[in-house]
């Protein structure tokens, strides 16, 4: 039995035995108190939405509250998720998951049961529930809130009977089932069956909506797209023997041999040596690498290789200390926790103290510092042709954040829907951001939602320059929520290696790693191609349409990008200057590598005077000279510089305050979508009536399907 005892007190004890897993569809578990006759009809109805391998553990009729109108429906707890299924709502086969009604177990941050004035927080080991709840509140870690009320009147007499008989009601069951399931769930667990059902739909090889960068061709295509001529795709890590956290392929300078790459990478922390992140159309290169592995003792040749990789053919190198002036991982985690506490609907912060409490979370301050740093780096990259190297010890967190932000700021391409998704795939997923650890999936202490911090930064950019982005706030929101939905492996693994192994990508290797809980049955290898970018898993077509920012000005589309003609600096020679960018200023470096007695090949010219260590001059000023110059010549085309002053950084209310429906209601949304629909309709009418239509009437109509998923 799961829980026992007479009386009204139920103690949750961790379940010993694993629930039976099978593909036989749902069945009521252990028959405990689930009255079969009644659930016959309902059961089949519930079952229709089930994923293969999903088992319904408990359910109870209830009413969803908080959001108007109140929806009657059923609260279902399965071994995979908690769902509120409104009456009459059918899951469409196309979208087996619902972004609206589903709560993945990993997402449940807090569970509260309310009866009258008493309020008990569950989900702690050994939580006691001493009453039958009138309402339960499920707080998602993604700031969503599900409030389900159970009205006595809503239960059929039968339910009362069974209650008296078995000493527990549906509600209790469902509540405790949630607690139970949550306790057993691990974030690493994936909805195993989902890929099956999805894979079944499209036979054969399914082309992912965006290149997943798992093949060298993807990398080659991307390299060509960026116009990085001095670079090539290295296959040195094809078997993940250089580093498991690195992608199988990455870009290295043309002239560097793979053997050299392997040697050079050994001198970096976790073997994450310098790789190209992005090639600026103006000629600069943005590189990222881990910290120097100081204990190693490289020989002269190795140092030469490392230096030439840093130099990447440029005469000007700027080394950016990524962690400087940015919060630590622990800071980010603490700020996020505080922010979540503040945004709870019952947060005890008085209204007139709200703003200082918001300041107190420091979250917005961290957003600000990220934007500021990214803005500085994009100035470095844009102002002249050089090689800019982001160096972070681990190279898996803030390097990704900054390099993505820099690309968003400097490349209009990255601001399109596809571009942004590829960007995240490249700089976060493929680059080995430890999603599982950072999102608390492994229980390790290194939990820190760096990726969510990044999304907040992007949202700030979006609200500051709404015309520059092809994606909308809702897209960001969808991405934000997807982080905790275990439907695809994208966010469920720490490294590309684990991800690849799990999806059975390289069967030639012996599978050392076996997931005890969700090992898919033999013969049903998970479709490796499913990723978070398959939005139709969770979002309906209408919702996907909302991913488009209707305020996007097509003038800003990538076509208008005119790369400046730059002389090629691919002639290898000693770099004329090496700088360290730190605390908002450039300081000259005498040698690039920290190792003792390294015979520096870099002749740092001494005519560059050291800059005052702390200069309040903005980097843009330093780089471009006096502002008066800008009057005549505005920013280079395509470059956005974010605002990061106090009043410009806002709270992402649609995301963080979702649990407080009163704040959400009546938010006057821009009415532009309505107008666009009207416009499209009128154009349609005109087209129908007049065979030939003048071209200016033709505004670009986007078909969501072609953009979001090319496969269908």
């Amino acid at each position, binding site marked *: 039995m799961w829980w026992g005892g007479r009386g009204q007190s139920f103690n949750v004890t961790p379940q010993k035995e694993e629930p039976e897993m099978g593909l036989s569809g749902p069945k009521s578990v252990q028959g405990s108190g689930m009255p079969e006759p009644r659930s016959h009809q309902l059961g089949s109805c519930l079952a229709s939405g089930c994923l293969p391998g999903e088992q319904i553990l408990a359910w109870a009729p209830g009413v969803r509250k908080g959001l*108007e109108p109140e929806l009657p429906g059923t609260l279902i707890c399965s071994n995979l998720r908690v769902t509120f299924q409104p009456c009459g709502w059918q899951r469409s086969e196309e979208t087996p998951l619902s972004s609206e009604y589903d709560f993945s177990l990993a997402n449940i941050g807090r569970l509260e049961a309310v009866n009258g004035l008493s309020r008990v927080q569950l989900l702690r080991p050994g939580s006691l529930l001493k009453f039958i709840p009138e309402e339960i509140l499920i707080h998602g870690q993604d700031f969503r809130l599900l409030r389900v009320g159970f009205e006595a009147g809503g239960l059929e007499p039968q339910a009362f009977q069974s209650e008296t008989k078995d000493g527990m009601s549906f509600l209790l069951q469902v509540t405790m089932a949630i607690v139970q399931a949550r306790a057993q769930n691990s974030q690493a667990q994936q909805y195993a069956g989902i890929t099956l059902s999805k894979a079944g739909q499209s036979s054969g090889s399914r082309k992912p909506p965006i290149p997943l960068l798992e093949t060298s061709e993807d990398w080659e295509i991307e390299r060509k797209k960026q116009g990085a001529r001095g670079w090539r795709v290295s296959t040195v890590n094809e078997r993940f023997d250089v580093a498991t956290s690195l992608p199988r392929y990455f870009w290295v300078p043309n002239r560097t041999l793979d053997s050299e790459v392997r040697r050079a990478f050994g001198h970096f922390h976790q073997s994450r040596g310098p790789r190209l992140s992005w090639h600026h159309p103006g000629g600069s290169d943005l590189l990222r690498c881990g910290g120097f592995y100081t204990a190693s003792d490289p020989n002269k040749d190795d140092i030469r290789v490392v230096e030439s990789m840093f130099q990447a053919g440029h005469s000007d190198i700027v080394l950016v200390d990524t962690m400087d002036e940015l919060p630590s991982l622990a800071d980010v985690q603490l700020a996020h926790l505080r922010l979540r506490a503040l945004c709870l609907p019952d947060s005890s912060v008085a209204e007139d103290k709200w703003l200082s409490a918001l300041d107190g979370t420091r979250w917005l301050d961290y957003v600000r510092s990220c934007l500021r740093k990214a803005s500085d780096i994009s100035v470095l990259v844009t102002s*002249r042709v050089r090689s800019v190297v982001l160096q972070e010890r681990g190279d898996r967190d803030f390097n990704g954040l900054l390099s993505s932000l820099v690309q968003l700021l400097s490349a209009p391409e990255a601001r399109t829907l596809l571009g942004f998704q590829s960007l995240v795939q490249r700089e976060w997923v493929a680059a080995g951001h430890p999603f599982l650890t950072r999102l608390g999936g492994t229980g390790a202490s290194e939990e820190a939602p760096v990726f969510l911090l990044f999304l907040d930064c992007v949202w700030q950019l979006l609200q500051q320059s*709404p015309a520059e982005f092809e994606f909308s706030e809702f897209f960001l929101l969808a991405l934000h929520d997807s982080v905790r939905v275990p439907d695809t492996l994208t966010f469920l693994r720490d490294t590309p290696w684990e991800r690849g192994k799990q999806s059975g990508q390289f069967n030639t290797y012996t599978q050392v790693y076996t997931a005890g809980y969700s090992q898919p049955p033999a013969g049903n290898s998970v479709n490796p191609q499913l990723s978070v970018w398959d939005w139709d898993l969770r979002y309906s077509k209408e919702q996907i349409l909302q991913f488009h920012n209707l305020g996007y000005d097509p003038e800003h589309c990538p076509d208008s990008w005119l790369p400046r003609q730059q002389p090629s600096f691919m002639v290898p020679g000693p770099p004329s200057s090496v700088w360290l960018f730190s605390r*908002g200023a450039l300081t000259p470096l005498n040698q690039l590598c920290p190792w003792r007695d390294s015979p520096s090949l870099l002749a740092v010219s001494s005519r*560059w005077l050291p800059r005052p260590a702390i200069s309040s001059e903005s980097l843009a*000023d330093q780089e471009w000279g006096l502002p008066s110059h800008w009057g005549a010549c505005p920013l280079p085309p395509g470059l956005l*510089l974010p605002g990061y002053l106090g009043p410009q950084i806002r709270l992402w209310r649609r995301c963080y305050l979702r649990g407080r429906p009163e704040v959400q209601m009546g938010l006057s949304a821009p009415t532009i*979508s309505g107008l666009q629909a009207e416009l499209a309709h009128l154009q349609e009418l005109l087209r129908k009536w007049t065979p030939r239509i003048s071209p200016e009437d033709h505004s670009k109509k986007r078909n969501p399907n072609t953009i979001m998923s090319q496969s269908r």
Partner: protein
Amino acid sequence: MGGAPAASAGGRCERPPLIPRVAASQGGGMLGKGVVGGGGGTKAPKPSFVSYVRPEEIHTNEKEVTEKEVTLHLLPGEQLLCEASTVLKCVQEDSCQRGIYGRLVCTDFKIAFLGDDESALDNDETQFKNKVIGENDITLHCVDQIYGVFDEKKKTLFGQLKKYPEKLIIHCKDLRVFHFCLRYTKEEEVKRIVSGIIHHTQAPKLLKRLFLFSYATAAQNHTATDPKNHAVMFDTLQDWCWELERTKGNMKYKAVSVNEGYKVCERLPAYFVVPTPLPEEDVPRFHGHGIPIWCWSCHSGCALLKMSALPKEQDDGVLQIQKNFLDGIYKTIHRPPYEIVKTEDLSSNFLSLQEIQTAYSKFKQLFLIDNSTEFWDTDIKWFSLLESSSWLDIIRRCLKKAIEVIECLEAQNMNVLLLEENASDLCCLVSSLVQVMMDPHCRTRFGFQSLVQKEWIVGGHCFLDRCNHLRQSDKEEVPVFLLFLDCVWQLVHQHPPAFEFTETYLTVLSDSLYIPIFSTFFFNSPHQKDANMPRWKRRDLCLFWQGREGQGAQSKPLNLLTVWDWSVQFEPKAQTLLKNPLYVEKPKLDKGQRKGTHFKHQRQLSLPLTQSKSSPKRGFFREETDHLIKNLLGKRISKLINSSEELQDNFREFYDSWRSKPPNYHGLLLPHIEGPEIKVWAQRYLRWIPEAQILGGGRVATLSKLLETMEEVQRLQEKIEERHHSQEALQAEAASLLRTSARLSSLFPFALLQRHSSKPVLPTSGWKALGDEEDLAKREDEFVDLGDV
């Protein structure tokens, strides 16, 4: 372009925020030379903080200036008082200081700087240009504080000076900050201009010396448009009758002319409205104190009243008389047909004027910054600083008070009587807020202007004292009207489609407080205005009043401009920015139908409480009985029991239930008052701070896109109309609709967005599919935006 001022202001600083520069640093620009392609070839070493411009630059500047002498533009009646040449206006451009050489003049209207400022020629600038006040003009009334810099130390300047500063810093009430460097100016000129400015802006003034009068006398032939086109002025009996008629208050309330010629009381307007059974002879007993004066009636018949408290007396006898008098008054308004009266004493347990004053002076310091470094420094604790000024909290409390009053009027069917010492400060604020929220008419420009006219101007708000226009007492200076505008801004910001005017309108209105060519904000009461008409003796005034009775004004009174004539300040093109293109006009019903159903319709939509509402925390039956008890006893005891807890409950319930429904822009409109929802009126407060602007971003970008789309839609609709004029009946209908609303062309498509209107206005629209409310609500959960799709 709707959000215009941000855009136009943006024109000034073409560049996004940067880290400001404080100290001089030689070689700062070194890196800048070269690769990018000669960025800033004429770059010079950075000037230091003190000497903003090096002598060479002044020389080059001088040459240019002598070529283009800028002439001083004087208004009719304006006189030049003093001037100084070779003054440098220091402009903060992002991170560096730039000097513009020119002439500083002081007239009896303004302080002006005449220089060759190329930024003034900017295109965006000219689009939203004020015709009266130029970019470098400061009206004398707009000056807030004057500082002088002596040896790099900043001191407040006042009175007689012994030593003259090398730099003059002027803080304006519209939050501009000017820096004038006097280092290169001749000494006697410095003396003259500094003492002149200090004298004319800070010395107490006589009302008669206001520029208003000299302007009006000089511009006598200026053809001012009839103020009645812009607002109901409420200076005639008819205006009040019209308002009574409009709000259906004429059953229980009457307009009286007992104060004609201000015989009874100089504080009250000549005409006002009181409950019908109130004997007119009661009015003079306490000089108008203790009389319930009607403000507004809501559709249910409940009214908002205001009363100025009786003077506090020590003498028991007098107290007894007062008590009897009040009892009598209460008796008349407690009897049916009048609803129960709830008294809101605004002077005892609400805000104090003192609080408002301190909060605002703290708040504005956040924006009055001398250089952007200061701004930068405050960033990290920005929200905390904001909170510590408690200005936002005061706004919240005002909005909350208004909601409480509305709850009484709307949900409990009670009359509300606002009580205040003079009924001219917080009374005005609360009663106008209530009307803005409840009466959609007050959300049109005409209605809003009439409202300000009714509650503030005629209602006797002491603008002269509260704005300290005459510099007579700093203590009296309390920005009550500004607080009101800020409260309205919160509403406009939260529900943009509900208002015909934009935030720009509110901003320019707040600026107009300090322009002394409009009479609107320069008197303490209508009486003061009428009494101070130049060349008008008291006798004339009486004649005038008699004249009004008969033929109207035969002898034309002095032509004072009202602020409501926006064409005085703005060109028609700029005026479009005051008008909200997103405003959804109330769907027009057939004329015959309209009169009958208008208010019923409205009531239906705006009544938020439905019986079926059950709160989650209560059982079915308890709630029912609660209601019963409330209904049975409530009426009798509500006046006696003022349990704040119950009040809070009612308030909460009312508020929540209103919010649980999608807002009806033509019904009751309540603001969100939670912590995160009260915001800084960025347009007004941040507009002069270049660092705070985002180029091509913010709401303006969305708005311009929106307008573009709207124009496109309109164009296509016209096209369709053209082509299929005769072919399809369907189209003919739409076309006729278009034509009737041709005046509001840009708004037209928005009539379609009314998902509450029973039938789709334009049959061609695709709205029907989305019209299903339940469907919408379902989707609102995750995608709030869909609600408006």
